[in-house]
């Protein structure tokens, strides 16, 4: 495909073993991240957004099956042996998870956690690794990095811990950072700081980011491109300000309309009715049809094909009720 893309995901499928047999939780997801860009993946629970991220990192639960292709810097990641994956994870692609308390070891000093992978992956000496750790802690604006290295995770606030987790993830200078709900557990004031930090660092250091969240507000402020997932499939994909400025899929339209700021002053919010489907009860046809006010007979049986509606925009809706507005 394109040499300027750090990551190319094509027709990715992830199947999970459930009590009722193998179920496809991610079904034909495709997207690409141009070098240096931030791609936002939006979706509710059960949309497949976290499984997509875990598939990129080879961290899927045991028994999960994958199909399709995930190419990182041109190299296929699906089907790699654990040892080969280890050479990519942490060095080429690294992960920042939602809760920094789960990504940081509570009993180890920050120094141990921030230097171990640098020494293992990059062959740094203890001194070099320590210098890199101090540099990274400075880059994420931890006051007094030297003292921070000697501390344990519990001595920091939630926002500071997430900064440390980001510093750790960036210590081996990966070209892709996968951030799974990195600010969901944080206060808005702290979230604002983390978003600004991510945006500044990727400009300074030139890495790409895949950020996953259900919060369209977060994505609209930071992501260049947006991929809206529903029921394991891509509903809409395009440049963030175009997608959020004029959503074209009924689901993305519904998400935008349900936001508190979208409804008129004094009027109630306009939520999407119903709830996202569970893996065991995925509707036939378009997964969104039971909640869609535009659904027609064909939506109940035919899975809509995703198609390009403009050079940078893809939509998976056969009815396409917002075609004229965008």
């Amino acid at each position, binding site marked *: 495909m394109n040499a300027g893309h750090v990551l190319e995901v094509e027709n990715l499928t992830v199947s999970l073993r459930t009590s009722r047999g193998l179920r496809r939780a991610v079904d034909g997801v495709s997207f690409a991240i141009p070098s240096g860009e931030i791609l936002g993946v939006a979706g509710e629970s059960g949309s497949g957004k976290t499984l997509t991220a875990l598939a990129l990192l080879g961290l899927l639960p045991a028994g999960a099956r994958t199909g399709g292709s995930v190419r990182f810097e041109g190299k296929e990641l699906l089907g790699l042996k654990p040892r080969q994956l280890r050479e990519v994870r942490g060095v080429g692609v690294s992960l920042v998870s939602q809760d920094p308390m789960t990504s940081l070891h509570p009993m180890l000093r920050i120094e141990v956690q921030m230097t171990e992978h640098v020494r293992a992956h990059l062959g740094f000496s203890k001194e070099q690794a320590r210098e890199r750790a101090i540099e990274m802690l400075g880059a994420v604006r931890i006051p007094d990095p030297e003292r921070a290295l000697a501390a344990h995770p519990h001595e920091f606030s*939630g926002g500071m811990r997430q900064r440390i987790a980001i510093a750790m993830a960036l210590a081996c200078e990966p070209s892709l950072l996968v951030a799974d709900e990195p600010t969901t557990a944080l206060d808005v004031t702290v979230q*604002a700081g983390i978003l600004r930090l991510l945006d500044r660092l990727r400009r300074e250091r030139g890495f790409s980011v895949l950020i996953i969240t259900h919060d*369209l*507000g977060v994505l*609209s402020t930071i992501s260049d491109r947006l991929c809206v997932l529903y029921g394991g499939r891509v509903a809409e994909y395009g440049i963030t300000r175009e997608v959020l400025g004029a959503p074209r899929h009924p689901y993305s339209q519904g998400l935008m309309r349900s*936001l508190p700021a979208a409804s008129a002053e004094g009027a109630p*919010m306009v939520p999407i009715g119903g709830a996202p489907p569970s893996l065991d009860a995925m509707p036939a046809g378009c997964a969104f049809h039971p909640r869609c006010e535009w659904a027609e007979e064909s939506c109940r049986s035919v899975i809509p094909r995703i198609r390009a509606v403009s050079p940078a925009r893809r939509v998976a809706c056969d009815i396409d009720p917002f075609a004229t507005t965008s």
Partner: protein
Amino acid sequence: MSELTAISSTPVGASGEQSNLLELVSVDVSYHRRGHAPGRAVIGASLTVGPGEIVGLVGESGCGKSTLGRAAVGLVAPSAGEVRYRGVPVEAITRRARPESLRSLQMVFQDPYASLNPRRRVGKQIADAIRLGTGASFGDDEAQARVATLLERVGLSAGIASRYPHEFSGGQCQRIAIARVLATEPSCIVADEPISALDASAQAQIANLLASIATESGLGMLFISHDLSVVRKIAHRTVVMYFGQIVESGTTAPVWADPSHPYTSALIGAIPHPGAHSTLPVELSGDVPDPAKPPPGCRFHPRCPVVMDKCRTEEPVVVAVAPGWSSACWRSEPRPIDERL
């Protein structure tokens, strides 16, 4: 609203402000740990909730908003100050039955999976609440009919009464939890982060449901949330807490349009706005201070973008910005009538 109800039948002065359902007066809550100085989670907080009124309580995590909410229903005992519900002091909950006078003061919790009994059918749980909350006794048929009405009221079908909580999504469970609260025929509800554990599309559904319950049934609601944009949408009044203290409170629209306290401004500026022309939100530097070592003077001064010398040493007094609108900041000033919207 309070002006209107004040003219009604109750003699003024006899029992204070009868128009308020819930009244918290200078409430302090301290937590004691062995070997540590007592931590003051809430300091001198006063607020009121009237019938049909939604009061939004906002602030960062650790600011004491949940503790204040728990004190309001008697889940924690205040170390000073008073909590009154319909003029009756709210006593801390003990192992004994709750006094009848307090049974219509109820709470909705953040995580519906944790607040519902996982091993009891949802219909039974709701029927329990009718019996315990209202003292009514009735047979199974009657129970079924009452449960059906409640389930329909919260937007669920009556047929789900025989199912268990794990069969539902988070949003549906929160509806069930709300139905169970409504079963007690409450006149005041304290909702502690009722939507923050839910999916994006369920958040708006539940917020709308709570708002319509308050306005249609005329019950008062203290809506605690860190989601400021939802509070802006549904709350009549907004109360902002920082580090245990209420720093600003007033009618939602004017407070949001032009906040008087710099902390309120910072909170509003930090909200990301989705849309075609979104910019990065404004950062509020620093962290909430260590509760064991509160800063001298104004508690917000180490993070305040407009701090003055006075703020570092002297605790600010509460200024009446306008009637019903107060702010605890040295820079806050009463506003002339024409600026008040």
